[in-house]
């Protein structure tokens, strides 16, 4: 399939229950502790990620499945993660 079906977006913008692949985690400041922790929790290039649900008020926080684990992330935290959707997103678990 051509690369045209692929888009890079923030995890906070990813529609629910659409599988995507992590591209990178961006530091929002030098030595961003939250970005580092996200990488340590498995938000690393090539990992499959999916937004499973959102909290009841203002759709915050997000319930994110990464690897075999579920995390609650606030939108500001999820915005650090860039993901790719589209056909190439289907990587084996």
């Amino acid at each position, binding site marked *: 399939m051509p690369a045209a079906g692929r888009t890079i977006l923030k995890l906070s913008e990813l529609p629910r229950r659409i599988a995507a692949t992590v591209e990178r985690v961006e530091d929002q400041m030098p030595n961003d*502790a*939250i970005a*580092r*922790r*996200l*990488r*340590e*929790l*498995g938000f*690393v*290039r090539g990992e*499959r990620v999916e937004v*499973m*649900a959102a*909290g*009841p*008020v*203002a759709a*915050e*926080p997000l*319930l994110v*499945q990464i*690897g*075999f*684990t*579920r*995390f*609650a*992330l*606030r939108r*500001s*935290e999820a915005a650090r993660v860039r993901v790719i959707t589209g056909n190439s997103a289907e990587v084996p*678990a």
Partner: protein
Amino acid sequence: MSNASAIRLALVGNPNCGKTALFNLLTGSRQKVANYAGVTVERKEGRFHAPSGRHYALLDLPGAYSLHAASLDEAITRDLCRGFYPGEPAPDVIVCVVDATNLRLHLRFALEVRELGKPMVVAVNMMDAARRRGIEVDLAALERELGVPVVPTIAVRRDGARELVARLDAVAETLHEPRTHLGSGDGALEPEALHAETCRLLSLAVTMPRRTAEVDDALDRWLLHPVFGLLSLAIVMFLIFQAVYAWATPLMDLIDAGTATLGEWAATTLPQGPLNSLVVDGIIAGVGGVIVFLPQILILFAFILALEESGYLPRAAFLLDKLMASAGLSGRSFIPLLSSFACAIPGIMATRSIQDPRDRLATIIVAPLMTCSARLPVYALLIGAFIPQQKVGLFNLQGVVLFALYAAGIVSALAVAWVMKKWRRDKNEHALLLELPSYRLPHPRDLALGLWERAAIFLKRVGGIILALTVLLWVLLYFPNGGGDVTQSFAGQIGRAMTTVFSPIGFNWQICIALIPGLAAREVAVSSLATVYALSAADDAAAAQALTPLITHDWSLATALSLLVWYIYAPQCISTLATIKRETQSWKQVGMSAGYLFGLAYLASLITYQVAVVLGAG
């Protein structure tokens, strides 16, 4: 290594890896809970004998996602593993616990620990749950690739750690031999490199039919649903409340009766005089008044522990995070605040689960605003005496007032947290990053040990600082006139002096005096009022009954309303302040909490009284 000196083991692992269950399985009730020197992080140590006769001392380190510490807990784990923690000897062997159903996350941490280059055993826990989900873990391949012993464990089964102990014995044999270091020794691998290695191990050793457990998917769909999720949370909360208030009552009555009998026995056995009064009125009545809350605290903690073990608590935090964050708290503040409705002491103790120190402090500071059960006797007396039993629409006016008092506490807590956030101009992001672990059935052994720990902490506090303060209050009430007229005691003199300050909010000298012993525990104010009005009443209930006509005659409605409002805010509970001291290790925080609560109490009562007087209720 001789058998006489115990081999020091450190148990490490990610949060939710079942580490504490394994610790409980290995050590049983032979554990000691304390704090690490100078900080409020819990330190749990236990001992056990292997069948080989070898002794082990096992330290349960705080759960960590990484040795690159992001919290106080993780920093302690990091320093202890490296042998840098002041006052703690370096561990001989590190036991790294990983959850077989969550290896993608947990193996990463095991690799990080291996980099430290210490003797180490990897315990692959929850092998039973993994098997049920069709997950296959090739332990031999893992052991070959990791280069350290890898053993399966099932922490919830009686002999689930037998193989682990056998391998520990084997490792202990070789401790004195020179070893080749596995890692670089500094434990500083980059996340990407660790991740790549984790993926390699997973592809070699683990087959997984699906990424998530079907049970988790199904439960989360309902329990995190915007409508059904909140509804189930409300039902859970209601159940807890019901249990804390209804189930605890018979036990509390029993303790009350026991205290009374003991008091009577001591009163008749000991010779008359100061000693008699100190033991009966001071120690037995004072300490008994606090111990009476033990059943409520245990029931509450049984629920909290069960919810924690089952994996529901992080879900509750998920549902409420946004609401609480906008007020300057966090989703994790929910359970401590809920507990505070029974009693602020366990509530403040429960803030240990809040990782962000700012969120934790904010939660501790506002916890006393939740209407605890000790306020109820005071509220009941005043509402019964001054609020007419009439219908307001569908509702009973008395009930509406009681509800308003509860609501005022909650709204004030949110407002105070919000002001604190603004005050500090805290622009730093508070991280949530909360793992929602798989649902599990709580194990009775873990619940029982957890409850025992809580009870021990509570009783130790009663034996220490609460006892000391009780004695101090007794001195104020007993001297200098040797237990005669209360109004002539030091407390009485202080009460009279207080009226200059308290007359603007409508308190007469009788109320002021009652406030002093009421510092020991809020509900004591009722029996103190009875004493001040020179009534002899057998117990609080009888005191309230006898008091009602007297205060209805003596006080204006404005005074009664003002006193009700005072009790929403005033930190009339030395035990709570002592708990704040213990949990924050700071007298400054205690001063701040007491200061703002008294300030708010005075201000709110002043407004209530003056407005009520203007409206003609004076």
